[in-house]
Structure formats: structure tokens, C-alpha cells
């Protein structure tokens, strides 16, 4: 009889500033680790093959697709999910998403916020066209993007770049 026990690994990583130690199946994605093992359901699973952007999280400060990142590859890493974002820039971004009606059902919003935050940190000065190009990897099926672009634009420019954000 063949051995049907799935290959396992004990993973140690830091999630939203807190240490986590989890036994995982080797084929587990970072997205499933966050949602199913750590119950951080703010990270949304959409297409689950890297196209829609709903599962975007920060891994060692860089945005990644949690659905096509192996949890096993994240041993020792710092992960920040939408629940763990804090600081003046994300506060402004959240307020702007609210003010500009940048969400309807909210499914894409966690990924939108993580991608927009990374974009604003890297490129604080952006035109609408650049915002649209750089946010093309995050799909929204409700808003038509106009509110999302307006919300990000509201946080772009002088001042936004200097906002310290924790979780980096």
C-alpha cells in the first residue's frame, strides 16, 4: 500500500507583527495559509491563478499574489495582510476609498488597498493614466474603476510619500 500521508512542514513566520508557527501541507498556498490556518479572511481568494489580484499581500514589504506563492517558500518571512496595514497613508487611502465610492461588493478591496499602498510608496507622483496602468493587475467587477482611480489620486502627490506606514 502506498503512503497517503500528505508531506508536511512546520513553518515559522511573522504575520501582521505576530509570530506564527503552523504545520502545513507542502502544497498549501500563502493565501490558504492566511485564510484557513490563521483565519485572516481579509485576504480574498479570487481566481487562484494570479490574474485577479484579490489576494495581494505584502511579503517582506513587497506586494505578492498569495494564491501563487507557496506557503512553504515563506518560512521566516514577514507577511502583512490588509488587517495588518496601519499608518497615515493607509488611513488616508481607506478614507478616500470610502469618500470616492471605490468599492461596492468589496471583494477586490483588500488587494486594491495593498497594491495601491505599494504603488503610492514607490511612485508618489502619478497621473490617472499611470494609476490605471499600475493597478491593471487588480480586477474589480463592480465599480468600473473610476472611483478607485480617484481615491488613489486623492492620496498621490506631495505629503503622501512622507507618511510613515508600519508593516514594511
Amino acid at each position, binding site marked *: 500500500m502506498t503512503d497517503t500521508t*500528505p*508531506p508536511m*512542514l512546520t513553518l515559522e513566520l511573522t504575520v501582521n507583527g505576530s509570530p506564527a508557527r503552523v504545520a502545513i*501541507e*507542502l*502544497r*498549501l*498556498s500563502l493565501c*490558504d495559509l492566511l485564510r484557513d490556518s490563521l483565519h485572516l479572511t481579509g485576504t480574498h481568494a479570487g481566481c*487562484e*491563478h*494570479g*490574474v485577479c*489580484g484579490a489576494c*495581494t499581500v505584502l*511579503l517582506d514589504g*513587497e*506586494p*505578492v*499574489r498569495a*494564491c*501563487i*506563492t*507557496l506557503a*512553504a*517558500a515563506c*518560512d521566516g518571512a514577514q507577511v502583512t495582510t490588509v488587517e495588518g496595514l496601519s499608518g497615515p497613508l493607509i488611513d488616508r487611502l481607506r478614507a478616500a476609498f470610502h469618500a470616492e465610492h471605490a468599492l461596492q461588493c468589496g471583494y477586490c478591496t483588500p488587494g486594491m488597498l495593498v*497594491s495601491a499602498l*505599494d*504603488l503610492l510608496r514607490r511612485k508618489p507622483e502619478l497621473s490617472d493614466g499611470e494609476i*490605471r*496602468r*499600475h493597478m*491593471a*493587475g*487588480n480586477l474589480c467587477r463592480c465599480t468600473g474603476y473610476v472611483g478607485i482611480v480617484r481615491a488613489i489620486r486623492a492620496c498621490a502627490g506631495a505629503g503622501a510619500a512622507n507618511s510613515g506606514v508600519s508593516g514594511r
Partner: protein
Amino acid sequence: MKPAPFRYQRAGSLEEALAIVGSAVAVDEDARVIAGGQSLGPMLNLRMVRPTLLVDIHRIEPLRAITRLADGRVRIGACVTHAALEDAPLDGPLSGTAGDFIRHVADGIAYRAIRTRGTIGGSLAHADPAADWPCALAALGATIAVVSPAGERRIEAGEFSLGLFETALQPGEIICAIELPAAPVLRWGYRKHCRKVGEFPHALAACVVRDAGACAQVWLGATGGAPVSLELDAPALGAFAALPEGQQARLRTGLRASIAALLPAAVAQGDAYARHLHAQIAAEAVIDACLR
């Protein structure tokens, strides 16, 4: 959990990775080398591939370095991410026009959250015909360095991709670096046609000019197989930038027609629109190289 079960081993060094892959090859196990996993990840999730062992090389530090060699060549480690190339400093090893070309190509690959994980070596090894690096590096005249327990060997980038998901890599070999020639790049053009920003393109072309004079060669990607190289006989293009607008327009049209005539019959056979698109994008890449 979407992929079929597999074992996973993270290699701490290239030697260790070669040993693990070598043992797997010896027992005919379906082992895959994984770096960022941005192409393999989706294929695992969709169960288009079901390897029984993944060998993770993404933390092997020497594979993540970009260095300028004493003879002027630039060596890019296989596990350098697209994002690291996009952000490569202008005054670092990727200075100059060749560096601008690399930064431009990297910036256009998929989305930032893919570029932070996806690697240049992974893209080459995966050999998706519509990927950027196989075509761009062929146009640049780069060399792919691959290692096996027997040592290192070098393969011209233009001869590395053999077809759909098919490369010159032999079982047990791992890409370790991409080397760019020392000769300066004078001008370049890079164009692709994507139905949506960040999606794989339907047409892709790169033109890199190292000698003064006409833009003589253009490489086409996204043709369904390995990148295709076309030799152009268009001496008038050398002075393109200085020509009056009317003549430029005529040359553009003529160039597209002559590229269309040179396109191998196998490229988008029977699809007039796709052939037109390949010729148009290639002509734009050549014109960009003339103007840049």
C-alpha cells in the same frame, strides 16, 4: 488547496540544488526547479503540471546578484526578479542603453505583484512563447549559463527556446545566470500588443542595434513557438530620424509589408489578422530603434 500533492525541498546552495535534482533525475522522478513560481504556480493550481518534487532555488544568494565582469559583460543571476531589474539603478552594473532596455522590458511584465516574485531565469526555463525575456534576451545577444554536476555550459539566448514550453535545458541542468555582451547597445525598440495591460501579448518584437547604420535584425515573440529572427534589408532606415514626415510614413508602410513577406509561413498560419499584427508590432519596434 488546489495543486496535486508534491514534496518540496529548499536548496541552500546551487550545489545542493544540483544534487537534489540529480537524485530525482536518476530515479526518473518528475522534479521541477521553482524560483518565484509565477508561471509554475498557476500551472500547479490548474493541475496542468503535477510534479512530485519541487526544488526551490529562490533563496540561493549568488543567483540573486547582478554583477559587471572585468571584461565588461554583465552577469544577471537566474533568480533576479523582474522587479529588481525594473528598479536596477542607472549607475549600477545595468548602466547605459542595454540597462535601459532591460529596465523597460522588466517594467512591462505582468504586474508589480508578479514582478516581485517572478525571475528572469524562471521565465527562460518556463519558455512560454509569449513571455518577454526569451525574445528580449535573444535580441540582446545574451548568453544563458546553465550548470549541471558536469560543469557550466553556455547557450546563445536565441537558441535556448526550442518551442512551446521547450528549451535546450537537459535533465539535471539548472540555469544559473544570463550574461549580456560587453559591446554597447546603440539603440533599441521593444513593442508588444496586449489586449489588457499586463496580460501575455499577442505580438511582441525586439530590435537591438549595436552597429551604427541600419536596423538590420528584429526578433519576434508570441508566435506560438520559439522567438523568430528576421534579417531586414532596409538601408534607408539608418537615416530614418532625419527624413521628412511623408517619407517616414512611406517607409513605415513599406517596412510592415516587407516584414510581413519575411514572416515564416508557420507563424499564425492561416490567420491574416495575427500575421498583420506580428508585422505591425515588429515594424514599430524597428522604427522605435531608429528613433531612440
